[in-house]
């Protein structure tokens, strides 16, 4: 196979219900979008099915694919469903209950029946070792081989299939952890043993320990999956390497992902934001609130030029210390069920009809009215359904479900549907606004970019309540995560905990610390063995005022690094965020961070064109119920829209992966990249 005929890039996002397959022709920017049902047992089979369809329907062979990157929920599902490996844990004597005590705080208030948390490794599979280092590295209790091996043997006897080691202060003084690991591997050469200082050397023993334990918990399953995927895709004719997306919005080789699967946990939502940011950069609008609305949840993120990161993410009830794209999930979606409480007040959610039985209109046995049923009854969603007719809508079933609820409210099905959408919008609003406040953002300064199956359907209703200036709907909003996979860069994070007051820190120490991190970063990139168009490093530090407990991440400008400069950068940043800075107050440097980015080849923005499907239907119209009255809404076909086209609500735009609803009061223009750009009419 010659390099010349390998002219496609493939991005795949494996979700709970569908596996999204997005193919891009490198020269033309032409996109092919497919949604294939996911396979929970064998996630890779959906990818193979996607490859088959590309061949059968579009005549594109797997061998023509030059780049393949994908994201999977396998890791996060294994963790959430508590279905992982039997991890054994070695701790410092006295700290056996590191996983049991957590950080104490329970995530839900006012719940006397909050379930008792269960540790990923039960107490019987945690063993203490007689060893102790002080915070300055002094050996308080030396480590002994016989003691370590006795503990390891005990864990193996208790059924541990891999061992995580987390000793106090190893983030800075890893000697004991490394020694223990070496001794254990001498006796158990085939055992998967991971030291917490290898994986993520940051201060805070519980969170650091958890990174290692989760890695062991999901690792075996992930490695098996990656091996199977490579095997099956090779047999299907794929001749390129495979990449996996990461929680930080980047990609890494599947070999690297097998070693550090914990880095993939939040990759799904991260990819969507990467895709959204890509669109934003393309059109020169880089202040975005991204809104990914699916069946059960709404994920939001704020992109203000840069991809936003957080180190305070959680999965289930587990904190995850690794930097991940800052995405907040809201428990509302197209599947949210509408109901009346005992006082007769209309509620929407938090329960969702999910994929099974799903909304009544999906005809899979659901009888409860959902948000999607409300769209259907109001004429917002196409009666022909989505996915080129593969997912039909049964509007009569939706109407029947709404009629039952409506009778109790004394309202028609249309009025009921309208009320459901108003309540659902208010629900999302109430969750979204505090999330924006946490980030210090005023919605009015941003554009709202919608994706996911229901995002484009609901986005204008939400934009109206938020007083937002602009709404964006990209060409393939149902597959934006897959687009994110396709355009993501190689990206890896490295950390060292310094925890030193600036006045005690020498320039050489600081420089040495960053030199070490940069060395690790460049080694990592070399190991990925990918031709990148550009490499750059983002150096930053988490810094706080001495005596305060709020830290700020300060990204270094392109200037020489010194302790003096660091102080100046912190004060400047602090003033920008909080409006004032006390420049006489001493500061403390907590974490030193380096992120390396290997920029992958990108499609040419100017060439990017959505794939025009054959058999486009002409524009038509149908009745839509809007705020209590029937109006005639234009029905447009997305594939037929061209740059410069312009229309006003009420209108719906039907497309393969979603339906866009534009209420009265908005005008939409199609921009040069086929995005729909909605603005309020004055």
């Amino acid at each position: 196979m010659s390099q010349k005929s390998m002219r496609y890039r493939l991005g795949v996002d494996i979700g709970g219900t569908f596996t999204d397959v997005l193919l891009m022709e490198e020269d033309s920017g032409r996109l092919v979008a497919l949604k294939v049902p996911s396979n929970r047992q064998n996630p890779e089979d959906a990818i193979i099915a996607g490859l088959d369809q590309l061949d059968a329907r579009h005549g594109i062979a797997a061998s023509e694919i030059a780049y393949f990157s994908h994201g999977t929920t396998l890791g996060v599902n294994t963790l959430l469903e508590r279905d992982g490996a039997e991890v054994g844990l070695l701790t410092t004597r006295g700290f056996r209950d590191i996983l049991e005590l957590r950080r104490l705080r329970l995530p839900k208030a006012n719940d006397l029946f909050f379930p008792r948390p269960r540790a990923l490794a039960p107490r019987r599979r945690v063993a203490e070792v007689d060893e102790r280092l002080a915070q300055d590295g002094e050996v308080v209790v030396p480590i002994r081989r016989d003691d370590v091996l006795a503990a390891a043997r005990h864990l193996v006897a208790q059924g541990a299939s891999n061992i995580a080691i987390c000793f106090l202060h190893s983030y800075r003084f890893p000697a004991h952890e490394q020694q223990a690991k070496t001794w254990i591997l001498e006796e158990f050469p085939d055992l998967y043993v991971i030291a917490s200082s290898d994986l993520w050397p940051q201060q805070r023993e519980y969170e650091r320990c958890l990174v290692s334990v989760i890695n062991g918990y999901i690792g075996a399953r992930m490695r098996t999956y990656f091996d199977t995927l490579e095997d099956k895709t090779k047999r299907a004719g794929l001749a390129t390497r495979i990449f996996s997306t990461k929680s930080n919005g980047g990609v890494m080789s599947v070999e690297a992902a097998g070693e550090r699967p914990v880095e993939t946990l939040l990759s799904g939502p991260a990819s969507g934001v990467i895709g959204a940011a890509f669109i934003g950069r393309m059109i020169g609008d880089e202040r975005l609130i991204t809104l990914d609305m699916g069946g059960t949840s709404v994920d939001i993120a704020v992109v203000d030029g840069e991809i936003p990161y957080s180190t305070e993410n959680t999965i289930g009830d587990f904190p995850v210390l690794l930097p991940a794209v800052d995405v907040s999930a809201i428990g509302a979606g197209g599947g949210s069920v509408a109901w009346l409480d005992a006082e007769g007040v209309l509620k929407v959610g938090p329960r969702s009809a999910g994929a099974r039985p799903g909304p009544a209109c999906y005809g899979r046995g659901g009888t409860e009215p959902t948000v999607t049923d409300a769209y259907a009854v109001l004429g917002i969603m196409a009666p022909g359904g989505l996915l080129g007719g593969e997912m039909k809508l049964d509007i009569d079933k939706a109407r029947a479900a709404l009629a039952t609820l409506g009778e109790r409210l004394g309202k028609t099905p249309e009025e009921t549907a309208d009320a459901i959408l108003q309540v659902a919008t208010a629900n999302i609003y109430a969750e979204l606004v505090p999330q924006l406040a946490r980030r210090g953002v005023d919605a009015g300064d941003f554009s709202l970019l919608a994706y996911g199956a229901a995002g484009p359907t609901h986005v204008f209703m939400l934009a109206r309540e938020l007083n937002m200036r602009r709404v964006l709907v990209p060409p393939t909003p149902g597959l934006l995560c897959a687009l994110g996979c396709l355009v993501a860069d190689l990206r890896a994070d490295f950390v060292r905990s310094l925890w030193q007051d600036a006045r005690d820190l020498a320039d050489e120490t600081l420089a040495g610390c960053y030199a070490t991190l940069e060395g690790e970063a460049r080694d990592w990139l070399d190991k990925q063995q990918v031709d990148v168009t550009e490499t750059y490093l983002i150096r930053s530090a988490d810094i706080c005022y001495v005596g305060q407990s709020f830290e700020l991440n300060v990204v270094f400008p392109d200037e020489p690094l010194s302790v003096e400069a660091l102080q100046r950068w912190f004060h400047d940043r602090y003033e920008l965020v909080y409006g004032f800075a006390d420049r006489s107050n001493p500061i403390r440097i907590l974490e030193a961070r380096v992120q390396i980015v290997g920029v992958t080849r990108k499609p040419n923005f100017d060439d990017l064109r959505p794939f025009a499907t054959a058999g486009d239907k002409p524009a038509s119209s149908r009745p839509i119920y809007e705020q209590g009255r029937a109006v005639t809404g234009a029905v447009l076909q997305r594939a037929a829209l061209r740059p410069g086209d312009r229309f006003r609500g009420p209108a719906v735009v039907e497309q393969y992966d979603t339906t866009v609803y534009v209420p009265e009061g908005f005008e939409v223009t199609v921009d040069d990249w086929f995005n729909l750009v909605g603005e309020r009419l004055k």
Partner: protein
Amino acid sequence: MIEDKIGLEILSNRFQAIVDEMAQALFRTAHTVFIKETQDYGAVLVSPGGEVFAASRRYGVLMMVGMPMDDAVKAMGDDVREGDIFMTNDPEATGGMCTHLNDIFLWKPIFHDGKLICYAWTFVHMSDVGGRVPGSIAPSSHEIYQEGIRVPPQKLFHQGRLDETFLKMFLVNTRTADQNWGDMKACIAGLSTAERRVKELLGRFGPEKISQGIVDVMDYAETQARRVISTVPDGVYRFSDFIEADMVGQGLLRVNLKLTIGGGEMHMDFTGTAPQVRAALNLPSFSKDGHWMLITGVVNWLCTREPGIAYNAGLVRPMKVHIPRGTIINPEAGAAYGGRYSTSHKVCDVIIGALSQAVPDQLPATDSGQGSILLVSVPDMATGETRVSVVQPLVGGSGGRPVDDGVDGTMVILNFLKNVPTELLEHEMPNLLIRRYSLRDDSGGAGRYRGGTGSIVEFETNVPFTTITARNMERYLFPPAGRKGGTPGTTGYTLLNPDGDDPRDIGKIDILEMDAGDVLRLGTQGGGGYGDPLERPAATVWEDVLDEYVSLDTAREKYGVVGTLKDGLDRAATEALRGKMRAARDGAPLKEFDFGPARDAYHARWPAALHDAVSEITQDMPRVQRQTSYRALYAEIDRRLDAGETVSAADVPGLLAALRSPGRRGASARR
């Protein structure tokens, strides 16, 4: 009757968004440890009449729905203008809105065309507001004047203009002036955010709809609360428990409740509760109906029954309270309040104890009852300065629940405290070595659902003059009770030099000075068990044995479960032993509450009628006389009981008369 049941849900959501956004704006700009780590702040919206109509369920202190703002509103009278911001921390002038001086409240009226629509309202717990000790709170303080500067309700801003004279006067009286002003500015940022959002809402929906919505959301919550309360069988339920004030020389302080449920309401009569004390344990509730520091347990119960319940003051309207003036939970003016949390938690336990008699399948067994923060101050030998840090929050396990075991190491009530990473603590305090931070094995009460275990913190100092303080330490005498056949949890302990020649359990700590090389081990309480331990599946007990939550001995003695670590669970022997244990009960019903031998012995000496008699006879006395007579009666009765005499309720008037015979002047001269 609520007319618009769709508009209600929409407005309710919008109000919720405003309080959550206000809380976030406050949190983001505040800087002190109290706010970040213990979430000790709050943001709510308040009706013109002084009721909380929207409160955050996610951020900050989560019990604010019962905070009574009516007296604070009245205190400002008609002098309320656009741009004003009010401030107070005074429990007495606000009728129990403030409950100790460290909580500073700031609030702002919001107008539409000159008409008052509502208030945005915030508070922060300040690290220090002056007074006799750093941090302002000491258990042994006995009058409010020792606890810091007191600010009666007054204006901080007059129509947008800051009163700098007043501000300076306030701040100069505190030890942490800069931080305090920083936190006040954070409150002001929150208030401004809320004002802007309420005005947007007024523009969107109009003032009539908003004002009606404020009324409706509270009526809605009240209707929901009344409906849930109506599911509880009508009746009278009694319960009492004791605050352990022995550390401050006040013995055991009884909290006594008669709970009457009927007509969708709960009447809580606290007659028989101990008089206020000369220590910082008094809770200034002013006997306000639904007062937030009294009803935590009930609000948690409502929210557990109905997770989507509207969260505002309507919830607490059906909770009527009667507390005699002069008791520890309704003290007369001038008392000290700093450590009122212990008292509040005890009231919560007592209400849960009473309510659970009506709905036993809806409430947990008693939890550790302790919400203490262990502080250490260490001299820096080089500079001579003192470094202060939190070692860990000292909380114990939850009680067993009718649906699940108790949570180990923390409580489902007061569940927002975070622990401190050992690595961080040792970095901040290099003279300390944490030797152990773990669960406390075998400390949860046995039951069908096991009580959550306590925890253990053990550390060593290598410098002299290492000073330890803690407040709100509770349950070192009487353990958390077991429920419906469950056995009690365990009491807390404090061992100085546990591995030395002379280990001593020093119990609750006021102030403790450690010397170089000293080791301190603190064990917190395990929660009470729920249900019959013999009904816990043997396999589940065995899992607990393998994970060492439960010892082999406890498994055998309390659960009737037999086995060895080598051969595993012995099912046959377990069946046999359980059969024998059941037979030995001889048909006796399971204990509704198991308070443990110490408290049972105390009850035998001091039956409820005797407590009631002392309370009743001292109730109407002037304050000082009531306190001294009450203590003297307890001392006298204890003396007689120790001497083997019997004392009954009928003897109390006679004892009081004997005590009252006037002392003679000049007694000291004759000594």
